């Protein structure tokens, strides 16, 4: 009993040290990924050009549909353009996680990564969060500037900004889990890209990438709200243009249901995949 009492804090301290070392490794990987992303200035510039084009098109589209005074389900042109700015910031900052996993499997690099003293999925997660943080920062600057030029300042408040930030973290986490789940299919099929195409279109439709879910016909609104994709884009963007506590509550509920569920699927998929993956090369 005495031994157990003494061992408790020691065990806790060892566990804390282990966790801290793991976290330190993951932070280092994330920082390296972020720095490496910054080095690709040309890619960042090219994405900014594309982003500007998308915003220009939609600004014109909403201008043509709504005129200067009209609104759609209560959203005016300025709100709709800023909504798109936030959703596109997230979409364009998405990293090449799928390509990375596919390449690891096809090139045989996976064999080396699996024996490293860090979990492969955690390693990919650190890379993903490192890269996407830089991407979101850069795209927000570029897209924000263009949107401001096109329709004026963002229709938001400090409170809405804080909610957006929280929902952005939740959305990006869900996005990682969804893409990781698809990427790990490479362990079984080697060609997971077609599944990603469908995912990207589900995000586009059920995730409200281009227009808020609020303007969908009733059936699709209900369907979208039952799926996790809305939390990736719609949640943060809707909060930004004034979604209030209702959107915040809705997204937190989605996260509470879907994050543990997706984590379980990924753990199961990874364990099964590692047993049967056919690694090429060497």
């Amino acid at each position: 009993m005495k031994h157990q009492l003494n061992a408790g804090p020691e065990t806790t301290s060892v566990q804390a040290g282990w966790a801290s070392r793991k976290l330190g490794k993951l932070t280092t990987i994330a920082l390296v990924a972020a720095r490496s992303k910054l080095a690709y200035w040309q890619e960042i510039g090219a994405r900014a050009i594309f982003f500007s084009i998308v915003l220009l098109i939609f600004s014109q589209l909403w201008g043509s549909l709504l005129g200067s005074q009209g609104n759609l389900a209560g959203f005016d042109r300025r709100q709709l353009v800023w909504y798109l700015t936030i959703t596109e910031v997230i979409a364009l900052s998405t990293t090449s996680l799928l390509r990375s996993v596919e390449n690891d499997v096809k090139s045989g690099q996976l064999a080396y990564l699996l024996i490293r003293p860090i979990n492969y999925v955690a390693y990919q997660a650190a890379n993903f969060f490192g890269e996407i943080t830089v991407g979101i920062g850069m795209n927000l600057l570029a897209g924000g500037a263009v949107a401001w030029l096109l329709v004026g300042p963002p229709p938001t408040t400090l409170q809405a900004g804080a909610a957006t930030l929280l929902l952005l973290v939740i959305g990006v986490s869900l996005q990682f889990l969804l893409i990781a789940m698809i990427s790990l299919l490479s362990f079984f099929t080697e060609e997971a890209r077609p599944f990603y195409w469908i995912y990207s279109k589900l995000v586009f439709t059920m995730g409200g990438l281009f227009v808020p879910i609020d303007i969908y016909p009733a059936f699709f609104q209900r369907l979208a709200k039952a799926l996790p994709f809305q939390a990736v884009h719609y949640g943060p963007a809707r909060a930004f243009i004034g979604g209030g506590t209702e959107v915040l509550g809705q997204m937190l509920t989605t996260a509470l249901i879907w994050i543990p569920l997706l984590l379980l699927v990924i753990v199961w998929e990874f364990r099964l995949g590692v047993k049967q993956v056919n690694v090429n090369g060497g």
Partner: protein
Amino acid sequence: MSTVVKHVEFLLAQWRVNLSSAMAYKASFLTQSLFMILNDILLLFLWYVLLHNFPDIGGWGMSEIWLMYGLSAGGYGLTAMLFGNVFELSHIISEGQLDYYLALPKNVLLHALASRTQFSAVGDLAFGLVMGYLGCRAVGASFLLFLCFLLTAALILAAFYVILGSLAFFLGRSEAISQQVGQSIVTFGMYPGGIYQGVAKFIVMFVIPAAFMVHLPVELLRSFSLPGLMTVILATVTSWLLALMVFSSGLKRYESGNQITMRG
């Protein structure tokens, strides 16, 4: 034998080889094509939602949207099937991989472009043809005319990508810019022409020519006019003349990658 016949024979032989390679991976080929069709169908959702809220978009209804997708997705599919390497041209040039094509007694650009077929493009083309057929039936247009515009759309898209890819001769590594700006012609082409005003209208006509690739042909399918058809043909010819001019002046600056390349 005339040069044109020789080129056509060479292209047919090259496409036969590409098709054989695709058939070696039948399951992958079919999966990619089918998923691409599904992917394209989901793109229509935005227009379904918007037309649920508005009577028309820039004067276009669902029939015109079908024609628009027919030309943009179908044109992309045709280009990617026949000249799949056009999307990789920038990479090929900056990596010095043009050496392989320079060493052979065939037209360098034609050989480089036709050396690759994108499997998933069959899905885009199939989707484009179905959309085109539905659109033509809905507006009472000739499907043959749609096929002509499909060809001009594919040619304009290919020329645009050749120009962007050739920037690598002058700028070095420019894959990212080439890809993103290239993608913009398809993106611009996936929205009704009527929504573009002012600077945007100028861009889609003279900088990123989606107007000649998609918007004008859709208008002509709705209401045919000979001057309109001549304008599309003229735009196609001009874009290729420009593409050939940029590529050949760039080729003079090309530096070999000194790579030993094995091709199966």
